[in-house]
């Protein structure tokens, strides 16, 4: 996790630094952060926002926004109901989630207490993502199973 400046360029630079040259980078259209934060990133070659099925098979990096972050559990909440965020946060080996620092809550249960959240129509499909996919079924703990091998959270200050 890292805290980055609240500017489109800072988002672009942080994503590129974390991707360490790997391409393509899949970008799911943000629904909670302004698209403006991602425009410079979209101009970078190898950043794709309209992937074809084959891109999901091969892309090493996926970028989504998150509508909340949870301090105690180190989680981000990603809405997978809209568009392609479900695939982008799941199939590439590195998932980068970008979240606004003002959307930080302390515990998962705090989200369920928020008035809009209690309405069944609000954020119908989402995931608390608290780390890369992992297993201990093969003996020792192994990171990277069916989902990302690495999770990186960018918090916009």
């Amino acid at each position, binding site marked *: 996790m890292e805290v980055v400046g609240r500017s489109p360029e800072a988002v672009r630079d942080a994503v590129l630094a974390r991707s360490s040259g790997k391409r393509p980078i899949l970008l799911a259209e943000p629904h909670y952060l302004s698209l403006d934060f991602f425009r410079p990133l979209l101009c970078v070659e190898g950043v794709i926002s309209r992937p074809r*099925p084959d891109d*999901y*098979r091969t892309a090493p990096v996926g970028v989504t926004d998150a509508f909340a972050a*949870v301090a*105690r*559990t*180190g*989680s981000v909440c990603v809405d*997978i*109901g*809209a*568009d*392609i965020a*479900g*695939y982008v946060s*799941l199939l590439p080996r590195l998932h980068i989630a970008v979240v606004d620092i003002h959307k930080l809550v302390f*515990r*998962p*249960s705090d*989200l*369920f*207490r928020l008035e809009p959240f*209690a309405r*069944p129509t609000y*954020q*119908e*499909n*989402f*995931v*608390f*993502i*608290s*780390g*890369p*996919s*992992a*297993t*201990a*079924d*093969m*003996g*020792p*703990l*192994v990171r*990277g*199973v*069916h*989902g*990302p091998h690495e999770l990186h959270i960018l918090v916009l200050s």
Partner: protein
Amino acid sequence: MSKQMKSPREIAAKRTKEILRRAIHFALETESSAVRHNTRTFNRSRYRATSSLPDYDALKDEARRIKEASLANRMALVQQLSESVMRNGGHFFFARDAREACQYVQEVCKRRQVRSMVKGKSMTSEEIHLNTALERDGIRVVETDLAEFILQAADEQPSHIVGPAIHYSRERITALFRRKFQTDLPLDTGEELTRFARERLRSDFLAADAGFTGANLVSAECGSLLLVESEANIRLSCIAPPLHIALTGLEKIVPSRREFAPFIELLAASGTGQPLSSYTSVFRPPLPVPVSDFRGAGPATREFHMVIVDNGREALAQDARLSEALYCIRCSACLNSCANFQVLGGHGFGGATYSGGIGATWEAATTGELKLARFSDLCTGCSRCVPQCPVRIDIPGLNVELRSRLNQLVPLSIVARTLHLLLGVPPVENASTQQIFFAHYDRVARWGTFFAPLSNFATRIPGARWFLEKSFGIDRRRHLAAFPKKTWVEIAAKELTAMADSHRGPDVLVLADVFTNYGAPQRGVDAIRCLRAAGARVRLTKSLPDGRAALSQGMIETARIQAETLSKYLAAENAAGRPLLVVEPSVLAMILREYRKLLSAESFANLRSFTGDLMEFLARHLAQQAGDPRAIFDIRKFAPGPKIFYHAHCQQRAVCDPSVTVEFLQRLGFQVTCSQVECCGMAGSFGYKKDFYDVSQAVSEELVEQWKAAESANGPHTLLASGISCIEQLQGATGRVVLHPVELLAKML
């Protein structure tokens, strides 16, 4: 014997004691070391995670309330859920039994021309044997949870509800994959094995026609599912294929998504011991996400089916003494904290689907066959799981009830029938010779003491131990403590009345429990001496059976009669409400915990109000006094020195705080190392029984290891334990004298 066994499936259905014995030996020989490592890792992580939850107890209360209310309202919730699912554009089906559930899924698959299905871990699908049904239709079913992937390759039943393959070591998985998949790929590390499975499964995910999942909870109000996982295979099963079938038991439905909240952190902490698992999904299928055409089959629309299964749950809900099992959220805390489960795993201590202490009720309820709960015999009633359960299920209570019902299934031998008559055992008990023997410890011991030393000599004549093993199932390898010539009550009456009370301190009543009275009278005398030295005026009660021994044999009616008799006697004897102090922790826990179900609420509350642990009372009393306790208990008089290795009794830890004893000993100048095990393995009569001797010994190994580690690091330690059976177990395993805390203190007077 296990050499001849082709698969653990042969011992999955434990209908008879013989199969249970085979399963125990198979588990101890083949699976124990992996199971020990994995369950103890889970267990340590859970203690860490739950202790960092700021409101752990409040969360448990809330979770319990939600489960109680939801189960009470279950049929209305099912109805509401069916409407929600259909409103969302999904399909809903309520399956009365396993056959209906499988048929429905088969029909959906047939209509959608499903050839392959990717599947998330689901115990409910194991319960209804869904894979077998689908495979009969020619569907390729792919288990994608890596533990289930291993089991599917090996064709075995799960051994744990959260980690179904915990009985597999890394080395055994390597051997299995080499044999099964005929591959030369590197498979010698966890990373390599995971990579192999991932690459195989990734193409299955993207090519599958259907995805199948269970659900941790379901919201009736909006039809949302709570899905907890760490591998991402459930997320993939939900999103990649165009068809999603979710199937779960009716007990998983709660009113709305708001009720998911307390379970989210509680489940992760109690299960894998994490703040949260990698993925906690809240989905309301069918997902509004376009289907990505991975299969190259052209555009497809999403379809969702919610299958809610009864399969014995409704009958269980109406069974007042067992219905609590339905609150289970399948976190596995009770398995990981169970000393017997830690050495056996679910192939020994479990059935075809469900395992451990909670599993017996589930196995019986979902198969409709009580006999399949036979493995509940492995629950010793140690109660270590009780404080670990996030919904506060009284798991030992369920197993006592099952044992009582299982007793009814066995025709009595002539000897057992005679004993019933001779001892006035209520006919309803239908108890075996062995059960009557252990349940009537007080009678056996009274005769033994009466005829001592003749009775002790008798157990040493050739053939006597063979006879005891044959007739009562008492393992001949187990050391039998000699009966004393005089009981605690007799010694106290003769010798202690001569000792003057100092009349400074409080009036207390000490319970002459049957175990100390006949089994360790001198310990009882030491307890009185310590209390008197601390200034208390002590009276000793009569020695009456408390019901613990009977309850552990499933003889609930006998236990109830004994509890009522003791309770009446104590209420009359103790009208003044003096503290009633108990030396033996199993008896203390009997009164403070088990009497809730055996006595009227009023009698229970009355008894509970004045009953406590003797050592805890002594420590607290002296802490309130002005003087230094070291003036009474002088460590310099204890020659072996200040280093102590202390094992607190399992049931004691469920009802009182053993750290009070530890802190008191530290105040007196001792350096105390505490055992970090759940139970010593003796657990009253359990370790004496021929069928369970090996389990009991296996459990004690960890305790002995910890004691040895303490000694190799810091030199000799005095062994200390608080329960009569823990002391027996430790003495047997170490060959050393083991003291009770009051015996230690008495040596310092």
